[in-house]
């Protein structure tokens, strides 16, 4: 099987799994998760094959794996869709497939497969645990998710969307995958639809991303009308790009800039950049694997991936670039500030995700193409690791909750934890690695290299503002990461639940270990040559490989000591302060940083509520419904009624009854009746006679025709 065919096949297993599970194996949990995980494994296998063979190809950037088929006839040409794997695609495929596979595996344990069904669990609510009875004393154990199979089906569809997005060679199919993911995020965030908050979160996520998507669709339409194609490699040709730059469009943007901007707004929605970031923290309502799926492996990465894809277009217009850089940097800092004040372990990670994505966007804004891709991948690894780790922690806490039976304790609140280090060692160490990677702990962790590269690029390209903002953001990142670790794992247990927390099954810990491995090692493939001591020990493979995607190879910056020192300082400093401040903080009260404005996320939700939601409701309810519909339109209609009635009666009495009915209606009826009476003798009910009549007629008519034709 050629690589092209294989690439075509990669997205298939998950979607097949989706249909199989939904249609057939919905009843059997074991079968469902076997199919789901198996599908994820198959896709992973295919992706690995493609990736490895992609490594083998010289100048993959010039001639990537691609194949396409005619899809829609557009006028006299065809709209072709197809698959494309260039260095960027290969690298993304690599982490996407691994993380997806890991998350599938993790979900098995997370949903307590193999445990008894809950005593009073209902579909649409998280399982509450079951009481089993062995040698005559009953105790509570976690109970299996009621909608276990459905979960795997949704995950499969989600994975399908992501794979489609990664392998597709044009914006349209990419957008299709994009939207499939939008739908799945809705389904999965609202997976426990029994919870009010989950419902709202799902709708919020769907709506918010939809705003971005609309603009993205506009951008795609604009691009298609401008260039007549949506295929990446066809767009990124010299003359197309030049044409786009030279054609002006609105607001003093060039067409290229406008398109890039529109597509970028789509990304803002998808990867939760300011000001459309609001949906992402709420998305934490979904099960933790979903959070990992959305925040690490797939959806938000998809946003950044889209921008990276369109980078050649993006980089054409300096205005757009600066907008992107600004939004990225701002989001990075802004989200970091909020993250500092959150107590929900998953929300902290959510905001850190937003800020890390801000890093990537900002990197793209300053033109650091490779750095962005690099950080995208490393971030995917350690963020997936962190989410799964937090899920593991929550799971352990739920064990405690079940043990004590006190269901009022929120197993996600970090102030209820503490001292989990000894309870759940594997989780702790992996989480620690992830946290250090996130905060860019120097040299060993992957996060350091990618983040350092971003800072270096920002500095090197002379965007001081961006540089400083990012540096501060990085500092805060390290700070709240350490805060989280300290509150969660270090110190003494603050609650009985925390005391009775216990390590999670292997299906949950194994993915942690694997991801931890990548979270550390993946950074080493991208060490800059000129780095002191380490530079050149390992060739900067990543830069070479992914850089090859662009037409002109991005130049390698010469080394500069300032960004290095900065990142060292912010990472270590942040970590130290995080530990120092929170080493003996035991309750939210003692936490100095619980500032309301941060706590309440700069009041963004309230602001949006006031600015958009309320006015919309008012317009709908009062203006349109009450005044316009009820008052104006109905009023007019009520006038029509009597008038029509009067007219109708006139017509009826003076035209209808006498003329139509009497004369035409009854008259024709009488005539017909009379004829019928005469003619009915013909209908003898005998088939053969009918046939004879038919034949006679046929012969006569035929003869007549023939005769006249002869005459004529």
């Amino acid at each position, binding site marked *: 099987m050629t690589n092209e065919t294989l690439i075509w096949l990669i997205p298939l297993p998950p979607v097949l799994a989706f249909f199989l599970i939904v249609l057939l194996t919905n009843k059997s949990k074991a079968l469902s998760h076997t199919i789901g995980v198996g599908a994820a494994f198959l896709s992973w296998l295919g992706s690995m094959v493609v990736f490895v063979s992609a490594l083998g190809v010289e100048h993959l950037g010039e001639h990537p794996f691609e194949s396409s088929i005619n899809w829609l006839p557009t006028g006299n040409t065809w709209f072709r869709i197809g698959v494309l794997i260039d260095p960027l695609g290969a690298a993304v495929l690599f982490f996407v497939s691994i993380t997806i596979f890991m998350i599938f595996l993790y979900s098995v344990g997370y949903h307590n497969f193999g445990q008894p069904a809950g005593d009073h669990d209902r579909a649409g609510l998280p399982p509450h645990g079951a009481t089993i009875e062995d040698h005559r004393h009953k105790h509570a154990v976690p109970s299996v998710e009621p909608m276990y199979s459905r979960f795997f089906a949704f995950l499969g569809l989600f994975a399908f969307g992501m794979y489609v997005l990664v392998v597709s060679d044009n914006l349209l199919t990419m957008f299709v995958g994009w939207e499939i993911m939008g739908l799945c995020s809705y389904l999965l965030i609202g997976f426990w639809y029994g919870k009010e908050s989950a419902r709202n979160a799902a709708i919020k996520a769907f709506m918010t991303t939809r705003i971005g998507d609309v603009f993205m669709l506009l951008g795609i339409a604009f691009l298609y009308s401008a260039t007549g194609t949506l295929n990446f490699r066809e767009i990124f040709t010299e003359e197309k790009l030049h044409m786009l730059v030279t054609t002006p469009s609105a607001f003093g943007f060039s067409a290229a800039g406008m398109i890039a901007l529109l597509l970028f707004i789509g990304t803002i929605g998808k990867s939760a950049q300011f000001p459309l970031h609001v949906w992402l923290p709420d998305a934490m309502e979904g099960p933790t694997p979903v959070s990992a799926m959305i925040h690490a492996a797939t959806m938000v990465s998809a946003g950044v991936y889209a921008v990276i894809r369109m980078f050649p277009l993006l980089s054409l217009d300096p205005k757009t670039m600066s907008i992107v850089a600004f939004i990225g940097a701002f989001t990075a800092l802004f989200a970091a500030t909020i993250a500092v004040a959150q107590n929900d372990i998953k929300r902290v990670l959510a905001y850190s995700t937003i800020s890390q994505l801000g890093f990537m966007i900002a990197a793209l804004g300053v033109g650091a193409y490779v750095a962005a891709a690099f950080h995208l991948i490393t971030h995917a690894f350690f963020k997936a690791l962190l989410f799964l780790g937090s899920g593991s922690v929550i799971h352990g806490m739920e064990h405690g909750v079940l043990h004590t039976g006190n269901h009022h304790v929120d197993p996600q609140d970090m102030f209820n934890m503490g001292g989990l280090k000894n309870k759940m060692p594997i989780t702790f160490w992996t989480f620690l690695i992830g946290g250090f990677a996130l905060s860019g702990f120097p040299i060993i962790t992957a996060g350091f290299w990618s983040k350092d590269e971003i800072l270096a690029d920002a500095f090197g390209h002379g965007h001081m503002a961006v540089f400083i903002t990012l540096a501060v953001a990085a500092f805060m990142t390290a700070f709240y990461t350490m805060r989280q670790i300290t509150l969660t794992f270090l110190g003494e247990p603050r609650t009985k639940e925390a005391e009775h927390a216990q390590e999670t099954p292997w299906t949950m810990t194994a993915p942690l270990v694997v991801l931890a491995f990548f979270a550390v090692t993946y950074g080493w493939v991208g060490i800059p040559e000129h780095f002191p001591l380490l530079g050149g020990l390992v060739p900067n493979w990543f830069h070479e490989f992914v850089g090859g995607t662009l037409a002109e190879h991005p130049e390698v910056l010469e080394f500069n000591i300032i960004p290095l020192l900065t990142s060292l300082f912010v990472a270590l400093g942040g970590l130290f302060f995080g530990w120092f401040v929170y080493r003996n903080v035991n309750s939210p009260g003692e936490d100095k940083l619980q500032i309301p404005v941060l706590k309440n996320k700069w009041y963004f939700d309230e602001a949006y509520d006031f600015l958009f939601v309320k006015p919309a409701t008012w317009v709908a309810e009062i203006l349109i419904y009450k005044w316009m519909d009820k008052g104006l339109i109905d009023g007019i209609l009520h006038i029509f009624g009597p008038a029509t009635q009067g007219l109708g009666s006139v017509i009826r009495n003076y035209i209808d009854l006498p003329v139509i009915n009497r004369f035409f209606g009854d008259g024709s009826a009488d005539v017909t009746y009379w004829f019928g009476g005469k003619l009915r003798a013909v209908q003898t009910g005998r088939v*053969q*006679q009918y046939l*004879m009549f038919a*034949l*006679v007629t046929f*012969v006569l008519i*035929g*003869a007549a025709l023939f005769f006249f034709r002869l005459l004529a």
Partner: protein
Amino acid sequence: MTGEQITFLVVALFTLGSGFMVVTTGNLVHAALWLVSTLFGVAVTYAVLDAAFLAVVQVVVYIGAIAILFIFAVMLTRKDMRDQGPQMNKNWWFGALLSVSTFGGLYFLLQGWSGLSKTAAAIPSGFDAVAELGNALVSPTAYVLPFEVASVLLVAALVGAVYVAFNRK
């Protein structure tokens, strides 16, 4: 008068004769059997026309299935084994008139048509009519659609026949 012509005439006369018996004989089972011989004559005609496959299919489908079906039907639709009364309805003469006129009309039209006297070209050597037919029946560029439609029709007829003839106790 070549051999082929003699063969044709013999076959045609045989076929027409038994066909005539089909529509005239009083005993319905005999009519069905005469139908069999007519169909057999038609099969031979196909064979003479180098359509061997059709000839065999004719034998299989008509003699093997349809004729048998007729005999069954004849035997199922009478109380005792004798045919009583005349087999022609009262205006059979008109039917005869019509059919003769039909034949006359057809003959007349045929006379007016050129290319009547054209003779068959020899089948090119190595031309496998069966394979050609098979390909034509299933290739999308040819007649796969009529073929499928015919199959659907058969299924529908099968179900319908079963339903209609089903004897509700």
